[in-house]
C-alpha cells in the first residue's frame, strides 16, 4: 500500500467517526464535570481517560467513587461493565488478525463501542486497513481525553450540583445508553431481572452491592434465555 492509499484510508476513518465526536464532546464535558464534583483533579481525569478509555465504566466508577477510593471494588466494577469487550474482540478478530502483530494489539487497546460498530459496518463492504481503523480510533481517543479534562477544569467551579439537577445527570446518561442498547423484546427478561434484584439489594444490603447482584441476575437471565437467532448472529460476524 502506498502512502497515498494510507492517508486516504485514514481520512475515510476520520470522516466516519466525525458525527460520533459530537456525542463525545457532550459526554466528555459531562463526565469531567461529574468527576470534579467527586473530588478528582483534572490531571487524574486525564490519566483515567487515557488509560481506561471506556465511557460507560468511567461514569460508573465516578458514580460509586468514595474518598478514599475502593481500589478493588472499582477494578471489579470496571471488569463487569466492560465484559462486553470480550464478545466485541472476538467479533473483530477475523478482520484484524492479518495485521502486523503490534497493530493488532494496539487496535484492541483502542476498541470502543463506537469504532467497533463502525468497523464491523465497513467490514461488510471492504477490507479493514489499520489506517482506516486508526483514523476512527485516534480522534475518538484524543477527543475523549481533551473533553473530559476540560470538563474537570470547569466542572469543579459548579457549586451545589443538585440545584441544576446534575445529581440526576448520571442516571439520565445511563438511561440514554440503555435506550441505545435496546435490541428488542429479548432484552426485557435480563433487564427486568436486574432491576428486581438490584431494588431488593439496594434496600437490604449496604454499599453498592446492588450493582454487582443486579448485573449478575441479568446475566444469568440472559444465559437462561439462550442465544437469539444463532444463524443471524453468525452472519453478522
Amino acid at each position: 500500500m502506498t502512502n497515498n492509499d494510507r492517508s486516504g484510508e485514514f481520512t475515510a476513518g476520520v470522516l466516519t467517526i466525525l458525527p460520533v465526536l459530537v456525542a463525545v464532546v457532550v459526554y466528555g464535558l459531562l463526565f469531567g464535570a461529574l468527576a470534579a464534583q467527586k473530588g478528582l483533579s483534572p490531571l487524574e481525569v486525564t490519566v483515567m481517560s487515557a488509560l481506561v478509555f471506556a465511557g460507560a465504566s468511567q461514569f460508573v466508577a465516578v458514580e460509586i467513587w468514595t474518598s478514599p477510593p475502593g481500589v478493588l471494588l472499582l477494578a471489579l466494577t470496571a471488569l463487569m461493565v466492560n465484559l462486553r469487550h470480550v464478545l466485541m474482540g472476538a467479533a473483530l478478530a477475523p478482520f484484524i488478525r492479518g495485521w502486523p502483530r503490534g497493530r493488532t494489539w494496539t487496535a484492541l487497546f483502542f476498541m470502543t463501542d463506537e469504532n467497533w460498530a463502525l468497523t464491523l459496518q465497513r467490514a461488510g463492504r471492504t477490507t479493514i486497513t489499520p489506517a482506516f481503523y486508526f483514523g476512527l480510533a485516534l480522534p475518538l481517543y484524543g477527543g475523549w481525553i481533551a473533553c473530559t479534562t476540560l470538563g474537570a477544569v470547569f466542572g469543579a467551579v459548579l457549586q451545589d450540583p443538585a440545584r441544576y439537577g446534575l445529581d440526576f445527570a448520571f442516571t439520565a446518561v445511563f438511561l440514554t445508553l440503555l435506550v441505545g442498547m435496546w435490541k428488542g423484546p429479548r432484552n426485557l427478561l435480563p433487564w427486568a431481572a436486574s432491576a428486581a434484584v438490584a431494588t431488593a439489594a439496594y434496600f437490604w444490603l449496604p454499599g453498592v452491592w446492588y450493582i454487582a447482584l443486579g448485573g449478575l441476575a441479568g446475566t444469568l437471565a440472559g444465559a437462561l434465555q439462550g442465544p437469539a437467532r444463532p444463524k443471524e448472529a453468525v452472519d453478522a460476524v
Partner: protein
Amino acid sequence: MQSDIWALDPLTLAAISGMALATWLTRFAGYWLLRRVTVGGRVAAALEAVPGAILMAIVTPVAFASGAAESAAAVLTVLLALRLPLIVAVAGGCLAVVLLRTLLG
C-alpha cells in the same frame, strides 16, 4: 473538593490503574480466546446481557426507589432519548427533576 489541577493522589492512581488493567483484560481477552475456543450458545447470550444488566442495576435506586420526581424524570428521559439527540434527553431529564422536585415538594 480538590481544586489543584495537578493533584495526583496515590490511591486514586491505584484505583485508575486497577480499572485500566481490568479494562485491558476485557479488550484483549476476546481476541486471545477466539484463537483457541469458539464462544457461542449460552455463554455468548450471557455476555451479551451483561452491559444492559449492569446499567439497569445502576439506575435502579434513583429511577425506581428515590421518589416520584426521579421516577417521572427517568421516564421522560427515556422518551426523549427515543426520538431526540442524547444531550437533549440528558438536559431534559435534569431540568425535569428540578421542576418536579419543586412541584412535588
